[in-house]
């Protein structure tokens, strides 16, 4: 097969997966909501009248068989209709979409910071493998992996906002308010990126072509960046893709600690208010974001590394 068709068939295969996986997600969500008991009780506040109950039962087709209910749930969801939030007095979808940018901004910023710091430290520790800097960096990485990120957030608030009063605890609108939440989320990603970079760099530094390049007299710095880093890039991208669900989900806790107005906190609030339409909309839309990002990641890695397309 030519390179062109190769890429296209790979892309097509991956794209077909999205609706299939989405169907699975919807089935899980539908199954959860419906096995929990009477949906009307879940959806309506306890003080709802009998008429409101009857109206909702009819609206949600709850008087129909289960497969028909699932069908209409699918059909409505595909049109972006996850129901009406009684708590917020507006459609669930629009509430979630309103909060999504804040979460994506935080996640995106943390990923960028994490890539910068992670790759930098990873290269440093690979070049100094076995020496003090390497050991220290690895120790900090293990520590970072082992901390609950919401606790790290609390401690950062305590040190930087309360004790030294250098930074505000949070604040969606100011640049300074971004620092602590971004650092907290980034701290969760850095160890992994760092270790992946380190492994890939050490491996590629041992390769024959590095020796050849060195023999040609190319400066070490150029070698490290041009040849070493290139090999590290793909696993890093892939791992970030896989982490995204956890990152957006883990942001639930970070957002709660920092009072960040994102979807994660919205999801938690909605669950505590028993605001089921918002809960379902949050879960499904977040899953969709993760799926689409993973698709982009897959396509990107296929573009960078031809081996991915073949496997």
């Amino acid at each position, binding site marked *: 097969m030519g390179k062109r068709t190769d890429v296209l068939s790979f892309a097509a295969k991956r794209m077909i*997966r999205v609706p*299939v*996986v*989405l169907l*699975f*997600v919807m089935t*899980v969500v539908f199954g*959860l*909501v419906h096995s*929990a*008991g009477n949906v009307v009780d*879940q959806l309506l506040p306890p003080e709802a009248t009998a008429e409101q109950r009857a109206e909702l039962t009819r609206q949600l087709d709850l008087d129909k068989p289960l497969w028909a209910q699932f069908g209409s749930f699918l059909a409505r969801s595909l049109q972006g209709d996850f129901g009406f939030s009684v708590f917020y007095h507006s459609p669930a979808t629009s509430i979630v979409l309103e909060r999504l940018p804040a979460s994506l901004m935080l996640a995106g910023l943390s990923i960028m910071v994490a890539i910068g710091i992670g790759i930098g430290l990873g290269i440093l520790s690979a070049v100094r493998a076995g020496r003090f800097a390497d050991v220290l960096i690895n120790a900090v990485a*293990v*520590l*970072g*992996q*082992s*901390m*609950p990120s*919401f*606790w790290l957030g*609390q*401690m950062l*608030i*305590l040190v930087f906002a*309360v004790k030294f009063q250098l930074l505000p605890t949070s604040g969606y609108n100011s640049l300074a308010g971004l620092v602590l939440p971004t650092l907290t989320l980034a701290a*969760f990603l850095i*160890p*992994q990126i760092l*270790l*992946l970079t380190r*492994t890939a760099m050490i491996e590629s530094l041992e390769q024959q072509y590095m020796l050849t390049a060195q023999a040609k007299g190319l400066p070490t710095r150029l070698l490290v960046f041009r040849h070493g880093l290139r090999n590290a890039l793909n*696993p890093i991208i892939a*791992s970030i893709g*896989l*982490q995204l*669900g*956890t990152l*957006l*989900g*883990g942001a*639930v*806790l970070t957002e*709660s*600690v920092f009072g960040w107005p994102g979807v*994660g906190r919205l*999801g*938690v609030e909605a*669950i*505590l208010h*028993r605001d089921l339409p918002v*809960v379902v909309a*949050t*879960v499904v839309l*977040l*899953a*969709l974001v*993760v*799926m689409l990002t*993973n698709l982009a990641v897959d396509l990107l890695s296929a573009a960078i590394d031809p081996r991915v397309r073949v496997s």
Partner: protein
Amino acid sequence: MFVDQSLALAAVDDKRAQPAAAPPPRRRHRIRPSLAVGGGILIVFALAAVFAPLLTSWDPMAQDLEARLSPPAWVDGGSSTHLLGTDSFGRDIFSQLLYGARYSIGVACASTLIAGLVGVALALIAGYSNRWTSGLIMRSVDAMQSLPPVLVALMVAALFGNSVVKLTLVLAVTAWPTYTRILFNVVRSVREQDFVSASIATGQRPLNVVVSHILPNVASSIIVITTLQIGRMVLLEAGLSFLGLGVPLTSPAWGTMLADGQKYIHTDVYLSLLPGLAVTLLVVGVNLFGEGLRRTLNPRN
């Protein structure tokens, strides 16, 4: 979460280890420092959890209202009656930490065990069956991994109420796909080895082939994933309990203590600091141990 990288490495190493023509040269067995330190930490925590009643005289939920919010013994105003101080209800922090270890370790181990059984079984089935079945299983893995675990767990807790058993099951539900995703590729590559084809050709039943040839070859991956997964479960459990949807509030749990601590974070730092350190130290132990295991079990390193 954080372990995926090590997990991926574990799988990759396994795959590479198989086609090796010659057995790896025998080396003298030396216990790796990470294995020893990690194992040591784990033993200390396990002992603390098991012998909690012997190590403290305080009931973790008993309220000593005379001594509310007292600091640890070594700080001004602290007393040796409550070694690590008390919380806002006058409950002994040290006892709560000891008994909380039972929940953290118990829930994490139980949920990982369930997730491991389900995940390994599905990986074996997917790796061994036709395109449709394996496609079905792997797409459900994709689906589960695109759902944020914290939100799924929260949703279940909100819909079904929270108890320790439900919490364990939910954590297991969010964890099995990691096993299946990593092991699927390993199983596939083992299946294509000559000795497996040979045993299939001699007419062995699929189940026999899986148990006698495939399972032993993925065992080290399973062990490593399991260790690292336990750390992940400890963190997730702490997070859910922190949000009030994990271990029920009537029981001592580190996450619940952290949630209480947040209310007093400006005045009584120890209420947040100590349970956070307990979680971190336990997970450091698990991660070090897992990393040590990974390196020890992989002949390539």
